[in-house]
């Protein structure tokens, strides 16, 4: 296998390169074709579709399809149902993000304490709701939140508080769904926080303790600074995920009561697959995309400012 002649070795090398190039394309091509065909193409088509009046008549016969410019968008901007969905989605995000982050952080700080027993077991257990099937656990929570027979109202009544019609009135339907969502997802960010907390050296806590700092001061001056960059980024990522709520209202409230839990994605689903206004539904999809894109750009800008996050 020794190579004597440099010319031969060069030929062999270039042949090797060509073979490697061919092999590389063989490895990459199936995935790229699939991504192009089933991801990129539909996304571009969605933009075009949103400029047409594609509806149930066009579905039956493409001759009924017309190009309508920005009419779908204009109509959305004057549609109170769409604005209601935007408002509900924002409410979910504005309440849900701080709530879920606070729950994740509290659980992470508690689990990070050395005096807590069986920590690896709790870690896995607290994360478990995250992997459960959303539809199934949403059904479970619908019954836990039941006005007359629900365990949550039973708990409230046994400490002397009045029962709440959680999913039956517009003022409590979003908080009720959020209780479920926080229960389901807090373990995810908890694990991320725990991973960061474990990089904080024990000496820092030791030093703070010697300086006479209590648990709260230790949290404020040691834990919080260490975790702040992660927290910022995790919150922005969470906003994007709260923008994609769909199955929760679909299963728990069907968008009700009085449209109070119709989210943007739920609105898109109904517009597209219930009323078959595919043009208008694509416009909704694009507005959703622009919102998420804006959030992502903020996220990237923040990431650049706070430096690489871990």
């Amino acid at each position, binding site marked *: 296998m020794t190579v004597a002649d440099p010319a031969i070795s060069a030929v062999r090398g270039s042949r090797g390169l060509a073979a490697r190039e061919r092999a590389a394309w063989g490895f*990459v091509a199936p*995935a*790229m074709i699939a991504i192009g065909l089933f*991801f990129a193409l539909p996304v571009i*088509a969605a933009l075009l579709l949103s400029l047409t009046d594609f509806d149930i008549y066009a579905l039956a016969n493409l001759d009924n399809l017309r190009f309508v410019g920005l009419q779908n968008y204009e109509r959305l901007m004057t549609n109170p149902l769409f604005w209601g969905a935007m408002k509900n989605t924002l409410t979910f995000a504005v309440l849900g993000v701080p709530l879920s982050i606070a729950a994740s952080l509290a659980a992470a700080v508690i689990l990070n304490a050395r005096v807590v027993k069986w920590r690896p077991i709790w870690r896995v257990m*607290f994360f478990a709701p995250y992997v*459960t099937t959303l539809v199934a656990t949403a059904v479970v929570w619908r019954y836990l939140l039941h006005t007359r027979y629900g*365990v949550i109202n*039973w708990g409230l009544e046994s400490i002397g508080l009045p029962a709440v019609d959680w999913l039956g009135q517009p003022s409590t339907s979003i908080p009720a769904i959020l209780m479920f969502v926080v*229960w389901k997802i807090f373990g995810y960010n908890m694990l991320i926080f725990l991973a960061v907390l474990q990089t904080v050296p024990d000496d820092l806590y030791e030093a703070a303790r010697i300086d006479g700092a209590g648990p709260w001061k230790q949290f404020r001056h040691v834990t919080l600074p260490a975790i702040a960059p992660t927290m910022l980024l995790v919150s922005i990522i969470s906003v994007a995920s709260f923008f994609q709520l769909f199955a929760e209202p679909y299963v728990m409230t069907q968008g009700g009561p009085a449209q109070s839990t119709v989210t943007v994605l739920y609105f898109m689903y109904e517009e597209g697959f219930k009323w078959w206004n595919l043009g208008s539904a694509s416009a909704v999809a694009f507005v959703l995309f622009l919102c998420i894109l804006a959030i992502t750009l903020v996220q990237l800008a923040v990431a650049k400012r706070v430096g690489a996050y871990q």
Partner: protein
Amino acid sequence: MKIRSILLNLAVALIALIVLFPLVWMASVSFMPTGEAATFPPPLVPSRWTLEHYQDLFLNQGMGRYLWNSFALATLATILALSFTVPAGYAFAKLKFTGRERLFQFLVAALVVPAQIGTLPLFLMLKGMGLVNTYAGALVPWLASIFGLFLVRQYALSIPDEMLEAARIDGASEGQIFRRIVLPTLQPIIVTLGLFVFLGSWNDFLWPLIILTDQSNYTLPVALAALSREHVQDIELMMAGAVVTVAPVLILFLALQRYYIRGMLAGSVKG
């Protein structure tokens, strides 16, 4: 110090109670006789243990069919996603080819586009191809997993170039190198990604809801959502359905949790 330790352990116990209660309650109610859960105060343990709701589900509600659909689709999605993304992820990490940088930039940009945007045209496309209400239609989105490609690439970057180069000098073809060296090295991330895809497909709701229009093709979540609209009053039946849906993924996760958590942290903390 003692008090702090007691308080912290109590707090953990309280969180554990909140986390576990809905799941334990679900299992307990599924064994109650019909109507027992609709009483006040809500009973926590069945007065008489019964399997009648599970029998009802499998004998009258077609649960066996939905369970099979979910299992078959999740398994196929896992196999397909792995065979599309693993070679591509490796090639992006370790093989030089013209256009690699540009393609990679395109994929990074595509990562910010939520897949739901293309849902409507994809549906129309598959309708044109006659794939609505087929397994193939339900599987299509799993072929185009940019996230999976990145996960594999990230891991494959750590394969030492010398190892691949040595095999090449020994006359191994690129295909042989991939099978004999790369695949065994990537084994942990393959398990992780396979687990992600299996659970993701099993739990997925929006896409199967749209594409699987015929009841005989429903997956468990779609069937459960339909069942819960029809049988709102049958709490015990619904809980049995939820147990059948959740138990397989929960057991799978617990068995392979190491792989799941490691992959999850690699995917998100490193960003």
